[in-house]
């Protein structure tokens, strides 16, 4: 089917539905233009280098260094990533290659449920369970006690939140490996571990990368759950037990009541723009890997 050879009866419905189909593109462009339109005056107001490399955040005095927030975002995202990726990939291997079909049937609703739980519920779980646990862990390992609101607490909560994304994507890719390839390896006397290592992982590498990038993107923009457990201190974190203040939390706490200090509004819009641009970047990378894997499996 294509737009050529449209019959007379189909002309109007095609035009009208086409208008709706272009709304998403319009929305994406509008978000980008609105945020950059509000943020650009800021770049002439303050130089880009003080913006990205200054760590003083004093809106009252006109200091808008975004570095603590960027560093906070990176710390939290990377912590979550390193906690979630090994567990996520290994469980995907279990689910796609080893698990009996009954267990697979149990796992699907479990993952759907985990993915569907609101972030504020994850945040509350973090406050009730993860933060006290991190406090105890810190007392045991470092010997110093603090509140427990830290990079590590946020990383743990985020890791659980992005697990469904990583597992769903990688299980789907792994189960699309042709059975004949696995059977060929098995018939040569390979153990199942060797099949996983030399056939499944090798064939699925781009798909697994896509799963990781999608998980990373999800962790990057998560707001409320992180905000509730991360401590929100605008300093560059020094360890896993330090508090942090990621970009989305900065927006959540301040965007609704932008003060009339020159540059403040623009600084916050720039923070939003950074989030938007990086997430779009992640989408492009994931897309590139997914196209690659779909070509591979035809």
């Amino acid at each position, binding site marked *: *089917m294509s737009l050529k050879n449209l019959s007379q009866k189909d002309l109007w419905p095609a035009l*009208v*539905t086409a208008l709706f*189909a272009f709304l*998403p593109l319009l929305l994406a462009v509008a978000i980008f233009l609105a945020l950059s339109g509000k943020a650009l005056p800021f770049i002439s107001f303050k130089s880009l280098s003080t913006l990205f490399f200054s760590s003083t955040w004093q809106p009252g005095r006109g200091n808008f260094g975004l570095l603590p927030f960027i560093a906070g975002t990176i710390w939290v995202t990377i912590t979550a990533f390193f906690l979630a990726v090994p567990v996520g990939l290994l469980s995907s*291997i279990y689910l796609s290659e080893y698990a009996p079909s009954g267990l697979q049937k149990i796992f699907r609703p479990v993952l759907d449920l985990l993915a569907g*739980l609101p972030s*504020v519920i994850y945040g509350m779980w973090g406050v009730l369970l993860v933060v006290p646990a991190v406090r105890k862990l810190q007392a045991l390992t470092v010997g110093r006690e603090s509140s427990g609101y830290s990079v590590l607490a946020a990383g743990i909560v985020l890791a659980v939140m992005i697990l469904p994304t990583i597992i769903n994507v990688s299980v789907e890719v792994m189960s699309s490996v042709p059975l004949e390839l696995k059977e060929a390896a098995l018939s040569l006397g390979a153990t199942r571990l060797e099949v996983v290592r030399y056939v499944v992982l090798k064939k699925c590498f781009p798909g697994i990368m896509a799963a990781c990038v999608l998980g990373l993107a999800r962790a990057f923009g998560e707001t409320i759950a992180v905000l509730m457990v991360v401590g929100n201190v605008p300093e560059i974190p020094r360890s896993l037990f330090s508090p942090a203040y990621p970009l989305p939390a900065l927006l*959540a706490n301040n965007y609704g009541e932008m003060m009339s200090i020159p540059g403040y509004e623009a600084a916050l819009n720039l923070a939003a723009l950074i989030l938007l641009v990086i997430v779009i970047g992640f989408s492009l990378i994931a897309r590139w890997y997914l196209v690659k894997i779909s070509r591979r499996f035809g």
Partner: protein
Amino acid sequence: MNNSCPASLIPKTGHLRRRRRAELLFKIIISICAGLVLFSLILILATILFKSLPALRLSLIIRTPGSGYYLGHEGGILNAIAGSLQLTLGATVVALFISLPAVVFLNSYLRRHSPLAEAIRFVLDVLWGIPSIVYGAFGFLIMLAFHLRASLLAGMITVAMVELPILSRALDETINMVPAELKEATYSLGASRWQTAIKVVLRQAFPGLLTATLMAFGRGLGDAAAVLFTAGYTDRITTSLFQPVATLPLAIFFQLNSPYPEVQQRAYAAAAVLTILILLISLASRGLSRKFSQHKIH
């Protein structure tokens, strides 16, 4: 071992044992990982329900906040329950109103893999990846541009933007499952594409449409970051599109850190209501899709 076999092809017993041991170890590790995923869901649900079910009393659900509510005096969370349902229902209707025609265009007027269709799907994926806090910020900018206050209408529009890509992609997947033979049969009878889309494709895909809509509804219900700046908060039940509206995620977020235990209890109660609603939606969408697929042509 068989003597006729060349010596080099006979696996040394030690070698084989090592491979078997690696296989066993690997199996144990991945089973633990999969168990960890299952365990984390149980842990989250157990923590939330254990903490919040005791706080859930009928008097909390059927009353709005009274005087001195935030100091621990009487009142309930009916404002947030009603507000969340109003806002999400409205947002889902708006999102459905846009995605349904868009998806009809994608599937009935374009070829599955035409560049235009792929581009629109990619834009939807990008929109899906944008953090809801960015939608919140964009919604807030729209509000400022139109001189709106934080209101049910502004919150509805923002949540609709969050739901739009989720709903469109889910509808697209569903409609894609409709067998091509069905469409070909109606085309061969002289039906237009529009007639086929409305009378055959959408009807055939109905259970899936319902499931997708419920999923988007659940996502909208739990989103806190999108309504943080746009919906406001109120102690009363909202009766107009231009009044602020209370929502369950924000009821949890604002009350969880209250120094008054009675107020904290209400945050727990709100979490119980939200979690139960999400669980019910997830169960309902499963049940519905099973019920309706009985009459489906395969």
